[in-house]
């Protein structure tokens, strides 16, 4: 049985014009397929294009050239509204800096993606509560981000990333700001999600973090230099 890949990318390029003739090729031709349920880590030196790639995968940006199929749909050249819709319906983001909205409580932060999906209101508060419980924050529902530790904030962010039941979860250095014990909490959560069959792409500098993935992409100068497959345990 051949299942359709969640992500299918061909010769994806992204250049930044810096005025005049200067153009920085942040991505210089990427080919990548990610199957459903796969856990992929992206590594590489600073400036190698990891974040740029993740932004493109996250439909936050448009490539200069190349094709990008997400769940079978061409999303490379969609307009702004359609990209927003794709992000809201199919993607879950986990950021290094957590990126919670400071004025909102834990439960309100988890609800934010649903706010922009008029069709997803029914039963949503139950779902949010369930997710909050799942990441271990059932007793902190009305706390504000400032009143939480870094690890707790990142767990709120993970609950938020799950609230729209995404096709793909994207994490840019999710443990970059955490100490080793809270890092372990967050990574265990990601492992659980992986075990449930979710598709996850994570950018990291940490070998130990990357080693939990099925596949590690090593980037260099805007290209995928090396791919390491880890045997299934």
């Amino acid at each position: 049985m051949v299942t359709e890949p969640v992500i299918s990318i061909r010769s994806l390029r992204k250049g930044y014009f810096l005025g005049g003739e200067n153009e920085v090729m942040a991505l210089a031709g990427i080919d990548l397929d990610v199957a459903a349920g796969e856990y992929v880590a992206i590594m590489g030196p600073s400036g190698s294009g990891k974040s740029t790639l993740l932004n493109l995968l996250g439909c936050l940006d448009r490539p200069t050239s190349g094709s990008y199929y997400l769940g079978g749909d061409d999303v490379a050249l969609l307009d702004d509204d359609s990209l927003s819709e794709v992000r809201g319906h199919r993607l879950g983001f986990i950021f290094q800096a957590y990126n919670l909205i400071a004025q909102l409580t834990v439960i309100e932060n988890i609800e934010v993606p649903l706010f922009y999906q008029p069709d997803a209101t029914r039963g949503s508060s139950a779902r949010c509560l369930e997710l909050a419980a799942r990441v271990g924050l059932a007793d902190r529902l009305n706390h504000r981000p400032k009143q939480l530790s870094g690890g707790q904030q990142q767990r709120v962010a993970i609950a938020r990333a799950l609230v729209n039941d995404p096709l793909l979860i994207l994490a840019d250095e999710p443990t970059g700001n955490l100490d080793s014990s809270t890092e372990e909490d967050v990574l265990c959560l990601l492992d659980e999600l992986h075990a449930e069959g979710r598709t996850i792409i994570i950018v990291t500098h940490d070998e130990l973090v990357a080693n939990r993935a099925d596949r590690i992409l090593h980037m260099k100068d805007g290209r995928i230099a090396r791919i390491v497959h880890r045997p299934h345990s």
Partner: protein
Amino acid sequence: MLLQIHRILSLGVKNLFLHKVRSVLTMLGIVFGVSSVIAMLAVGEGAALKARQEITRLGSRNIILDSVEPPQNAASQQTQSSAAGRRKYGLTEMDRTRIARTLPHVLIVHPESTRTDEVTSATSQHMATLIATGADLPEVRQIECEQGRFFTDLEVLRVAPVCVLSPSLSRKLIPFGEVIGKAVRIEADYYTVIGISRKAGQYHDDVPATGKAEITRNLVYLPVTTARARVSDFTFGRTQFDTLVVHVDDSSHVPEVARNVESILLSLHREKDYKMTVPLELLAQARRTQRLFNVIIGSIAAISLLVGGIGIMNIMLATVTERTREIGIRRALGAKRRDIIWQFLAETTVISLTGGLIGILLGMVIPGLISTLTKIPTVVTTGSVVLSVGISLLIGIAFGIYPARRAASLDPIEALRH
């Protein structure tokens, strides 16, 4: 759709509550703008209403002629000082018949003269204003009888010794029992009371009943013929008529009749010993003044509301900068540009509408205070309230749209990096 609006508005309210002091300060511009507009309009409307009432009381179908003592040069005043006291001036029977007989559209030329004198009943004596007038007074001056009736043309013709009293005077003169049919005395003669007027009309201003004003509330209406025959002040007065009211069939004919009356009087009088008042013209004048007043108020209001609106825009621009990261997060999580626009517009609209509503409340309280403290009449019209709500809504949208667009135009990646 409704749910969506509710969500967006409650988000707006919530964000405003997170910055209470700032929101209230931003609101103040609108509060003061709107309340001053409503208060000023209320004062203006009160003045206009008073003018209109005044004019309606005079009657829009009436032309009022008053006798005026002519200016005398110094020489004649010196030499004829004793004779001048007796010299007659003002409107005459001749004027009255000429206007009544020759001018089309004139229904009635109605005489009125007033003097003060003592009125005596079986139990007491009071100073009162005597009004010598015709049988048409009820129609011309819109005066009614609360009891009994007014005198008729026949009674005027027959010099009947009858009178109509104002309610306050009738209470004082004959406090107990039936008033109609009793007699009161003026000078040496007795008059049968045939009616009590209603508390309305020209001589019934709601002035405090003290001093001279007391006399203006003590009124005795007498047939003009009777008064002239029996009351010495009328018999030997220097004017035949203090006032003639020309009652016209339709207000559209008033200007024409006024012109004709003017030319008749010019031909009959050697000097300007009369004054003509046309209430309808006063009304037009009052309308012009009112319009000018409204334009001035409108400009002041526009400026103050503009200042309020700019205040809102200023704060919202600062807010957009401050909340760039939040905007980036929302965009990453699926918010479209228009969601961001609505979010910011909802905030400015809530600010300006709340400000507007507070302004309306304040604007309704202030005129009340003005009225009770200064006795200047004020009227808060629904029109001004509706206008204010509309304007504040418009300000919220007009001055919110630029910051909102600016927020929405932020690139999500850039905004997240903030």
